[in-house]
C-alpha cells in the first residue's frame, strides 16, 4: 500500500496549471440515494440515482494576466474544464487523473482581510467526469 501526502496535487483550469495558487482541493463525488423501499421491507432500500458531484478549491488570488482571476472570470457562468492529478507526474493506475467539466457558478474575486493574503474558496458542480489511468 502506497501512502502519499496531499501537497503534490496538480490542478489545471482549462489548459493552465494553477497548483501553486491552490491551498486545498476537494473533489466530492456523490450520487442521489433514491428510495425504493417496498412493502414488507424491514430496512429502507435505496438505489443509486444521478450523480451530483462537487469540486471545491481554495485559491490564493492572483490578478496577473492568464492567472486565477482571469481564468475564472472568463468562465464565470459557463463551464470550465478542470483536471486533477493526485501526484504531479505521470498518470497511471496508481495515479489516476480526474478530468471534469464544472459550472463556474460562484466566484469571489475580492475577499480581503487585514490579517492575511487574499484567498477565495469556490465550490462548483461537476457536470461531466472522466477518470484516466494513462
Amino acid at each position, binding site marked *: 500500500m502506497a501512502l502519499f501526502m496531499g501537497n503534490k496535487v496538480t490542478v489545471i483550469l482549462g489548459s493552465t496549471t494553477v497548483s*501553486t495558487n491552490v491551498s486545498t482541493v476537494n473533489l466530492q463525488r456523490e450520487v442521489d440515494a433514491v428510495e425504493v423501499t417496498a412493502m414488507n421491507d424491514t430496512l429502507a432500500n435505496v438505489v443509486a440515482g444521478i450523480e451530483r458531484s462537487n469540486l471545491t478549491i481554495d485559491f490564493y488570488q492572483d490578478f496577473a494576466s492568464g492567472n486565477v482571476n482571469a481564468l475564472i472570470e472568463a468562465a464565470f457562468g459557463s463551464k470550465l474544464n478542470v483536471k486533477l492529478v493526485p501526484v504531479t507526474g505521470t498518470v497511471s493506475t496508481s495515479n489516476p487523473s480526474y478530468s471534469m467539466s464544472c459550472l463556474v457558478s460562484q466566484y469571489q474575486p475580492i475577499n480581503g482581510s487585514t490579517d492575511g493574503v487574499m484567498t477565495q474558496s469556490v465550490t462548483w458542480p461537476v457536470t461531466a467526469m472522466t477518470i484516466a489511468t494513462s
Partner: protein
Amino acid sequence: MIPSTVRTNLKTALTSISGLRCYDIIPDSINVPAAVVGQLDFTFDYSLNRGTDQATCEVILIVSKMVERMGQAKLDAYLAGSGADSVKAAIEADTTLSGAVKTLRVTSAAAGIISSNGTDFLSYRYAVELIG
C-alpha cells in the same frame, strides 16, 4: 524563498531609514540605533506543488537607553505605521523584497529590553510574515 536573499533584502529595505544601522547577522556588539534581521521560522507547502512557503522573520530594533526620553522618542518614530523612520513602511515599501518573496506584511511589534555586553537597550521585536 531563499532565506539568505530574504534576510539580505530585508536589511537593504531597512537601510532606507536614515541613521539606522542594519545587520543581517547577529553582531557581537551593537552600535545603536540598529536593526537586526533575525532567523526565519518556516512553514513549508503553503500552496500545492511546492508553489510557496510561509515564513516569519523577526527584526529587532534597538535604541539606546542611556538617554531614555530621546531613546523612547526615537523608538516611537520607528514604531509609527508611516513616515520616514517607520520600520513597517520601510519593509513594506516593496512587498516582494525585489522579487525574493511573493508578498509580505509586518504583523506586529512587541516592546522590550534587550541586553548586549552587559548593557540594556530599548527594543522592539517586529514580526514579518513572508510568503514566497
